[in-house]
């Protein structure tokens, strides 16, 4: 399954060293895209300006919460949230309700944890 660096649009295959360490361009955020949707994804990201890409990086990190604020690369599953441009989001509710991981944090040579579980708000119900 391809991963795309949000900053420079480069695609990487599963397990590529760049995903684990971060892209050579300095990007630490990757979109995880299904092969069959690759062509459509390419069209979207090619049309983004550098400023828009920067904004998307900021937005994704804000959406997924503080857990991702350290320096590890992050992979956002585009099946769950598709960001077309800053401020334009498409959400796949079935995916979200299934509690599939939304975001993978990457580190120490492997995909680590399901952030959606780890950044649950403190629930004082």
């Amino acid at each position: 399954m391809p991963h795309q660096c949000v900053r420079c649009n480069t695609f990487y295959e599963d397990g590529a060293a760049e995903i684990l360490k971060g892209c050579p361009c300095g990007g630490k955020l990757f979109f995880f895209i299904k092969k069959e949707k690759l062509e459509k994804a390419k069209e979207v990201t090619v049309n983004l300006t550098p400023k828009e890409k920067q904004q998307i990086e900021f937005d994704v990190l804000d959406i997924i919460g503080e857990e991702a604020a350290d320096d590890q690369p992050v992979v956002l599953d585009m099946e769950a949230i598709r960001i077309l441009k800053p401020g334009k989001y498409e959400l796949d509710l079935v995916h979200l309700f299934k509690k599939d991981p939304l975001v993978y944090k990457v580190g120490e040579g492997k995909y680590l944890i399901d952030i959606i579980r780890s950044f649950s708000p403190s629930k004082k119900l």
Partner: protein
Amino acid sequence: MMNILKKFVDKVFRDLFKKKKHIRLGLYGPPNGGKTTLANRICQDWLGEDMGSVSPIAHETREIYVKEEINIKSGRKELSFNLVDTPGIATKIDYENFVKKGLSVKEAKKRAREATKGVIDAIKWLDDMDTVIVVIDATKDPMSQVNITIIGNLQARKTPVLIVANKTDLKKADVKKIQAAFPQYSVVGISARYGNNMDNFYEALFAIAG
């Protein structure tokens, strides 16, 4: 053996002196269905205060709000709950819709980002709900992807659901259409804004959660 006996005695005593039922009650639904207006109505009816702010621009509620210890009564029955108001669940969030309503581009993009986060949070919190009220705008087609996904998911979780067909003060409101769309659920038509039919709403709530 003594352990089992002790557990049994404990349970009998707990049941005998059980306090009134306390649940976590979540308000869910698409944006601008009137969740916060209903939350405010419930809080006004039983606590004499509002819970959150409402707005004609969608996604006004972008964080989870909890009002603790609301006690309601109907006849001899009492129900105590924590009311959880959630952001509206949507499949598409586009800042341009907020710009059309008068927000600046910067404000609109921020609202879109927060609303997206809100949808994810709302879904996450569903795990903690004992009973859910799904608030639907009765002037709109109920067979939307959002409604069907929420209600289908709650059914799979076996969470008790009460469907509120809100905005019955508006001419276009059609409660029967909502009943027809979800025949296996209790549907109660109300106007949260004007407090119409709230007695029936509380009765239905007792029937589901009491």
